[in-house]
């Protein structure tokens, strides 16, 4: 196919920068696609173009390609951004300007006109690759299975096949992995790939399966690679076939409209099961003879083609002769090339309460058969159950007391009620407010408080114990207070020599307490030695020694020049100083 370009030059750009847009064709059908390319010449660092609004197209970006050439010493570079446009409707459309930003400056391409025509109504077998979407039934009922098959025919090698198929308005089940066949179409042999999907229409009315878009790489005939797996996602063939040229292509199928029929109201059973398809039902008992209060398991199987997964079998109600405990149903689904089938298995633990010959009643099921266009009712056989009195008498009390039990086959079961239980009307349930722990903050405080109080108590108790048993600690604890008290008790009007003696005694006693020394008859020199061992600094030691020497001198001096308050203040200062350091 010849490719022609419409070059559109922008305005007001530097001499070495050119931005243009092109398409590979201007007329196409709804089955085709068009490649819209934006070429930026003069640079390779342009950002991806901003496309115009394309409401009538689906857009898929492709790889960008860049080139750099030196011809006769002239350098040229360019980058091309390509987009595949899939038309969604017929008509004449103008693709507006694409905008490219280079170094903060915007460049726009010229608009391009495209003409989109209806797709051909017949399969064009002149093409080497084409795709067809078919459905098994265009007028299905709601929930009736419809098989949609996408077939891709090809007589050239294709690879990296990617099909974008959308089924809105349906529940879908993939039937099988894509299979390869050989088909003859209009006398031409094609290889075909089929992808089948089971669809279940969700609502009545017109529902469209939109056109599917298939992308693939076509191998050039000269490359000769017909046997490659087209679903190979890794393109392994390219490693072995460097001579074959790959050309990326797209296909579109026709959209298909289904007219989904509602299920008829005529003959519709009151307890309709919502099943649509073709089903069978069967039942069996694990044991046909049991003792009263013993358990046998009833297994009911519903199998067939259709939406069996949606089945909800009503709970059986068989009076007072048999208690029923129902298990969660099991579901198994099987898919073939064309249909979805499955089976749902309900298990009931039956506990007979009276001896005698009982019959497990038939379980009925109705469904809509689309082939007949009518509702069908099926049922299991009524099963005989012989109940013997049992050696230990009735065991039903054991079962009554437990709403959840296990039968001998390990089936867990739950009690089935006939109706809801009455409201709670007793005033006590509303009058007595639930015990509340109040707000979160209050609760957190209440939770942390015992731990905090314990820590405080623990510390206090340990301190008390230390005061009791640690003599050194006990002596030093309160030494300062005692010394201060004695200072306060000194009468300033007394004889200064007597005051000096008292002060000397007080300071020595204080030092004896904090250094744990025996007696108070220590000299100033001894004080210095002990204080050094006690870790006091040179200043404190010096000051203490001088003070004590001064007091000693004053005690034996005929007169003292120092007033009593000054002597007391000196003692206070040294006590404060020592207390800070101790």
């Amino acid at each position, binding site marked *: 196919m010849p490719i022609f370009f419409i070059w559109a030059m922008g305005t007001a750009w530097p001499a070495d920068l050119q931005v243009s847009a092109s398409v590979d064709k201007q007329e196409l059908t709804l089955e085709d696609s068009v490649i819209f390319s934006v070429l930026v010449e003069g640079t390779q660092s342009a950002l991806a173009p901003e496309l115009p609004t394309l409401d009538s197209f689906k857009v898929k970006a492709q790889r960008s390609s860049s080139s750099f050439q030196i011809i006769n010493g002239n350098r040229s570079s360019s980058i091309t951004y390509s987009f595949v446009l899939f038309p969604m409707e017929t008509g004449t459309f103008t693709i507006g300007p694409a905008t490219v930003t280079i170094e903060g400056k915007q460049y726009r391409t010229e608009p391009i006109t495209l003409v989109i025509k209806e797709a051909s109504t017949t399969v064009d077998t002149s093409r080497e690759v084409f795709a067809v979407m078919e459905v098994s039934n265009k007028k299905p009922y709601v929930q009736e299975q419809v098989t949609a098959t996408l077939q891709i025919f090809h007589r050239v090698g294709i690879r990296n096949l990617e099909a974008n198929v959308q089924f809105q308005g349906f529940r879908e089940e993939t039937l099988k992995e894509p299979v390869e066949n050989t088909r003859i179409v209009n006398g031409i042999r094609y290889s075909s790939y089929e992808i089948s999907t089971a669809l279940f229409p969700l609502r009545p009315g017109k529902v469209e399966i939109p056109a599917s878009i298939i992308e693939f790489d076509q191998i050039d005939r000269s490359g000769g690679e017909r046997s490659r797996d087209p679903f190979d996602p890794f393109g392994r063939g390219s490693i072995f076939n460097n001579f074959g040229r790959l050309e990326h292509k797209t296909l579109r199928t026709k959209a298909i409209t289904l007219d989904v029929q509602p299920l008829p109201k005529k003959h519709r059973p009151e307890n309709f099961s919502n099943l649509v398809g073709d089903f069978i039902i069967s039942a069996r008992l694990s044991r046909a003879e049991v003792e009263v209060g013993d358990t046998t398991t009833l297994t009911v199987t519903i199998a067939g083609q259709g939406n069996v997964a949606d089945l909800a079998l009503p709970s059986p109600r068989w009076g007072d002769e048999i208690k029923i405990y129902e298990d969660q149903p099991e579901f198994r689904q099987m898919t073939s090339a064309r249909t979805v089938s499955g089976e749902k298995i309900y298990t009931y633990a039956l506990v007979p309460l009276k001896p005698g010959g009982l019959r497990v009643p038939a379980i009925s099921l109705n469904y809509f058969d689309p082939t007949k266009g009518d509702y069908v009712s099926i049922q299991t056989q009524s099963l005989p159950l012989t109940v013997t009195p049992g050696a230990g008498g009735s065991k039903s009390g054991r079962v009554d007391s437990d709403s959840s039990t296990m039968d001998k086959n390990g089936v867990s079961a739950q009690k089935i009620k006939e109706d809801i239980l009455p409201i709670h009307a007793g005033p006590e349930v509303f009058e007595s407010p639930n015990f509340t*722990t109040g707000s979160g903050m*209050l609760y957190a405080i209440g939770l942390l408080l015992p731990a905090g109080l314990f820590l405080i108590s623990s510390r206090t108790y340990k301190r008390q114990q230390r005061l009791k048993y640690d003599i050194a600690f006990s002596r030093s604890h309160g030494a300062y207070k005692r010394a201060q008290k004695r200072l306060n008790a000194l009468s300033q009007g007394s004889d200064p020599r007597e005051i000096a003696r008292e002060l000397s005694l007080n300071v020595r006693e204080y030092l004896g307490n904090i250094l744990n020394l025996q007696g108070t008859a220590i000299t100033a020199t001894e004080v210095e030695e002990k204080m050094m061992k006690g870790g006091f600094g040179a200043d404190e030691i010096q000051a203490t020694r001088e003070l004590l020497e001064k007091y000693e001198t004053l005690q034996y001096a005929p007169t003292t020049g120092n007033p009593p308050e000054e002597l007391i203040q000196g003692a206070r200062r040294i006590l404060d100083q020592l207390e800070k350091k101790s």
Partner: protein
Amino acid sequence: MTTRYLQIAIFFFCVGIQLAPAPIWGQVTTRVSQANQLYNQNQFQEAAEIYEQVIAEGMENGHLYYNLGNAYFRMGKLAKAILNYVKAQKLLPRDEDVEANLEYAVRQTVDQLDGRKPHVLDSILFWVRDLNLNEHRIALFWINLAFWMVMAIRLRHQTPATQSARNILLAFLVLALVSTGLRWHLETHQSTGVILPQQIDVHSGWNATTRVLFQLHQGTLVSISQEKEDWYEIELPGEKKGWTLKSNITG
């Protein structure tokens, strides 16, 4: 001294209990009795309105949710009935009536599915769902208090008996902490929803154009695992999961 601090602790606890917000029970009881009478006279809608009002005023009572569930069930509003039974079950986890009615209501739905997902720790901490969050908190409080009291007693009496008591209470305290934490997590992070419309489509993604995986019907209980924009991701037993609009689910 130690005993005095513990006495203070107990005092604070009692004060805390007294300070806890308490509804005006007299008025509430009268209105609930009135609603119960209306229910018994088959005036279910009027009864439901009163139950809803009382709940809206802040009364958290499992029996009230249960009665409201019954009223909605009788009105044929299966989804709302199931939702209120689930709320009642959170507050009254051991109440057999609530369990029976919830089970019965679920069986009346088309799908008959209880999609509430068990937590991975449920089988180990099997008692967690048997107590409501408030009961867990109360148990934790008393065990905590007992533990610290024993610790205080051990300050003066370090005997083998007090040591055993301490070890046992410590084990209980750890269990109570984990249980309360798990229950809190279940109530705050594990969301349950009920399908409101007659039938909904469950999609593979949070977009209406994604494929429909399956359909669910009114009243089906589902677990909500995450949300994005206007969509919830819901889970059902058997690893089934998908997305549906938030407006389809009440919870």
